[in-house]
């Protein structure tokens, strides 16, 4: 932890040059500061030093006393009076390095022509720069069966491994998933998995990226391309609100792989497997390419753009309309929807929360979240973290990695208010504050925090009445910071863009006349609607009551809502304009379908949970960069109330003019929790969350990725299991009036009243199957 206190600097001489570095710096990094590249394989700046490969040997002398033999520069910190001679000035170090390289190459197969790493391989490169030109080895190389799947998405070629232990150290130190280890000794030493546990880590893709040889390769990229075929574009991840920096590699208009970018303030050098490997939805064969309009016979038929836009504009003008925009829109697109609702439709009926939500949450977002500036750096400085309605590993994996780093490096205390002890919290060695689903509020109020603490609130906190009021009150009384971490990448941006009924762009309350004037001036309109907008659920209800006749829907899955049947019926009833990338439940019921660009095909930005802008350019060209924004702009033009937002740049410029709202914020009216339900013998209260790898729309077509998803199970407590006579693996049928799911049981640490099941995994899509996901009473029977 660097503070304002002066860091002790140490001056050393490397190859005759003096350099001053902070105490504790390793020699190999001090050399880097002078631009001296010492070859290395096992060394990684974010992993603990191990000195496994011995490639970085240098000659060291301290105060006139030399080490008798060359030393590994990646394990020795600088000391005063140290004189280091690298391969550039010391013949001994150079010979030692060449010798180590020769040893490493003895058993390394000549696979380069078929190896994915060929062309970007540290071993290949450093064998050229620091190795001998000729091999003296004439024996038989070590052979292993190859490749072996250590998970459905990671392949291991043991022959190629040089035993640097980067992958095992990453899994152990960074991800806390020690599912791979070095087995055997000597020439037969190899990376292996435990006999019965495959390498099911959400972060396994990072091991592929940091492997300095081609020993670990990704199944989906294997043999697809060579580095020189790829055009790389810096991009941002569209999967969750962590906001990872990414690199998208494209060959001939097709995304072949995505890698974690290097952003020390956000994702460091890591990302999760979903961000890395879930990108095939973009090239799915059923992508929409042409506008579709429903004809008189009731069929969707292809139409020209002017025709489709005219039909859309006419329909939206004829009815009272509302906007439903999913949490996956970019900041600029969300801003477009927000402005479209106010300017073209003249309404505040817009909601980005296409999921379970509440009015309490809307107030919470307006009073505590919009404009908030809690960052990853604050997590590094916090004394205690409280997790409310938030499962970091499943819902925002990079936040999990940051928490885990702080737990490991400085013993950060983490507490989770939840019904079930999650795998993530267990790995974080967190305190598990057990509550019955729906009873979070009282427990939150009793937690003791300081002004240096942070409350990480997930989107699921809205599912428990009173929880967000309690969080707000706790923050007020203790001075702790609040960070709201939604699951979807676009939600924070949509909030800031005012894609919600009670806020205008820039966190300005709709109810505040001065705020409305602010925005009306910016938009050059005479006035803005002043009636508080409806929420998603209210919009659906208003369609049924006839108060709303038309909907414009972008990136929404109606099955994510509280009452999917009602949502689908509303889509049938209303005039619907759908902006989508692929056919969905919405487009099937829409009257006009307008195809839009996927994230890799357009430019824009996401605001991650910190509110940090993660901008990106189009990685794949030739799709006309047809962002939602541009299409909304065209519809508005057609309707006669132009938005003047033809391009993403135009929107970004307008957003930059917004400025901050310095007026009065929305204040929260506390909501009291619901009463505890009385349960009879076979009743439980349902608890659930979405897993990182599940049936999500953006993970479509990724079989290799789906192979590492966690098993679909129903979790009950040991007490209830005993009273019901249930053991691990017995089938449990969970039912409501809507339907039922049958899942194998797992007896674990969970509140006695609760039963947990994944919300949207294969065989357990609770909102569709049961109609509820959290806090409802369900009947459970052993089959």
């Amino acid at each position: 932890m660097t503070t304002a206190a002066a860091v002790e600097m140490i001056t050393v001489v490397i190859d005759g040059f003096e350099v001053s570095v902070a105490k504790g710096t390793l020699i190999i990094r001090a050399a880097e500061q002078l631009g001296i590249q010492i070859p290395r394989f096992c060394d990684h700046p974010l992993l603990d030093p191990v000195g496994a490969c011995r490639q970085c040997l240098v000659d060291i002398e301290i105060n006139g006393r030399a080490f008798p033999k060359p030393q590994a520069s990646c394990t020795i910190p600088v000391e005063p009076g140290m004189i280091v001679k690298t391969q550039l000035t010391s013949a001994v170090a150079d010979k030692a390095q060449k010798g180590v390289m020769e040893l490493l190459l003895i058993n390394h197969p000549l696979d380069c022509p078929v190896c994915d790493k060929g062309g970007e391989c540290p071993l290949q490169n450093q064998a050229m720069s620091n190795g001998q030109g000729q091999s003296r080895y004439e024996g038989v190389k070590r052979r292993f069966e190859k490749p072996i799947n250590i998970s459905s998405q990671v392949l291991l070629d043991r022959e190629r491994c040089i035993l640097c232990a980067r992958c095992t150290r990453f899994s152990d130190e960074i991800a806390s998933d020690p599912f791979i280890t070095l087995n055997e000794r000597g020439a037969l030493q190899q990376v292996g998995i435990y006999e019965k546990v495959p390498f099911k880590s959400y972060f396994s893709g990072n091991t592929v990226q940091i492997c300095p040889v081609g020993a670990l390769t990704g199944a989906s990229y294997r043999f697809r391309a060579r580095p020189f075929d790829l055009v790389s574009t810096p991009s941002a991840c569209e999967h969750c609100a962590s906001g990872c920096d990414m690199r998208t590699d494209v060959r001939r208009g097709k995304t072949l792989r995505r890698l974690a970018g290097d952003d020390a303030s956000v994702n460091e050098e890591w990302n999760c497997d979903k961000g890395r490997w879930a990108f095939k939805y973009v090239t799915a064969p059923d992508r929409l390419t042409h506008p579709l309009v429903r004809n008189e016979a009731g069929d969707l038929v292809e139409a020209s753009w002017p025709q489709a836009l005219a039909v859309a504009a006419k329909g939206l003008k004829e009815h009272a309309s509302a906007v439903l925009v999913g949490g996956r829109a970019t900041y600029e697109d969300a801003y477009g929807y927000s402005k479209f609702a106010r300017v073209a439709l003249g309404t505040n009926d817009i909601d980005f929360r296409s999921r379970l939500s509440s009015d309490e949450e809307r107030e919470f977002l307006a009073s505590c979240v919009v404009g908030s500036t809690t960052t990853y750096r604050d997590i590094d400085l916090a004394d205690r973290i409280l997790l409310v309605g938030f499962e970091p590993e499943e819902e925002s994996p990079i936040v999990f990695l940051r928490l885990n780093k702080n737990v490991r490096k400085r013993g950060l205390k983490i507490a989770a208010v939840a019904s079930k002890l999650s795998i993530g919290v267990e790995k974080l060695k967190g305190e598990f504050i057990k509550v019955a689903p729906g009873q979070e509020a009282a427990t939150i109020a009793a937690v003791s925090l300081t002004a240096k603490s942070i409350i990480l609130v997930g989107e699921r906190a809205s599912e428990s009445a009173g929880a967000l009021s309690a969080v707000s009150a706790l923050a007020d009384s203790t001075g702790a910071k609040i960070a709201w971490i939604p699951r979807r990448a676009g939600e924070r941006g949509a909030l800031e863009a005012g894609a919600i009924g009670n806020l205008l762009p820039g966190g300005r309350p709709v109810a505040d006349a001065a705020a409305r004037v602010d925005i009306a001036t910016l938009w050059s309109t005479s006035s803005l609607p002043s009636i508080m907008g409806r929420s998603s659920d209210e919009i659906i209800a208003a369609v049924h009551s006839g108060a709303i006749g038309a909907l414009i829907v972008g990136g929404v899955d109606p099955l994510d809502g509280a009452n999917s049947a009602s949502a689908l019926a509303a889509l049938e009833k209303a005039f619907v304009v759908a902006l989508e990338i692929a056919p969905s439940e919405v487009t099937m019921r829409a009257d006009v379908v307008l195809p839009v660009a996927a994230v890799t095909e357009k430019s824009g930005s996401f605001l991650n949970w910190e509110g940090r802008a993660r901008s990106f350019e189009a990685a794949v060209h030739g799709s006309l960069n047809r962002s939602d924004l541009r299409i909304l702009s065209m519809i508005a033009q057609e309707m006669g109330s132009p938005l003047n937002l033809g391009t993403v740049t135009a929107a970004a410029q307008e957003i930059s003019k917004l400025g901050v709202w310095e007026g009065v914020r929305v204040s929260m009216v506390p909501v009291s929790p619901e009463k505890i339900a009385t349960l009879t013998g076979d009743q439980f209260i349902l608890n659930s969350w979405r897993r990182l790898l599940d049936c999500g729309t953006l993970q479509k077509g990724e079989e290799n990725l789906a192979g590492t998803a966690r098993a679909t199970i129903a979790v009950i407590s040991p007490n209830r299991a005993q009273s019901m006579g249930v053991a691990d693996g017995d089938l449990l049928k969970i039912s409501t009036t809507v339907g039922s799911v049958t899942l194998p049981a797992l007896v674990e640490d969970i509140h006695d009243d609760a039963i947990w099941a994944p919300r949207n995994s294969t065989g357990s899509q609770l909102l569709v199957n049961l109609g509820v996901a959290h806090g409802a009473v369900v009947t459970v029977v052993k089959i």
Partner: protein
Amino acid sequence: MADIEAFKNRDGDLNKVEFTQVEQPGSVGFFGHMKGFWVTFSTIFKRPETIEYPEVKVPTQERFHGRHQLNRHPDGLEKCIGCELCAWACPADAIYVEGADNTEEHRMSPGERYGKVYQINYLRCVFCGLCIEACPTRALTMTNEYELADDSREKLIFEKDDLLGPLRAGMLMPPHPMYPEMNDTNYYNGDVIQAHPSQDVK
């Protein structure tokens, strides 16, 4: 020379430049002309060097760089492993390759990997042969065929089917499994002489 000096001083006039008369050779004389015509005349009695192409074709030198060929192992499996080293080596960017996985059901070459797409653009190729040098499996070689002319650009982008060598005696058309009890190293070492009956899966 004096004129140039004048230009250097910028006070000369371009129109005043006079061209110097270069000394021309004089006439070669009668015998000189006869000497030249003798060459023409004597050629009448020599065997003509021209041939009736395309009816008659003269073989090229053995190592002439002509159209490429993708070779097969003696059992018919392809030698190409789709490694793209040829594309990498190509100074004219004339080669495009996409690799893919061999599976037990669909095996095109020994080992794990084969070239799924293989194209050479003969409008770009300069026949330098660097691709041949780069090929690690001797899958790509050059034939002596030089008749590479056509009437459209598309026809001059040769696909894998156009480039693959013919099936010879003892070869089977892939996909088919590897020779029993043999691995890819055996193939490279030349241990497979011809197809085994068990490889004929069709």
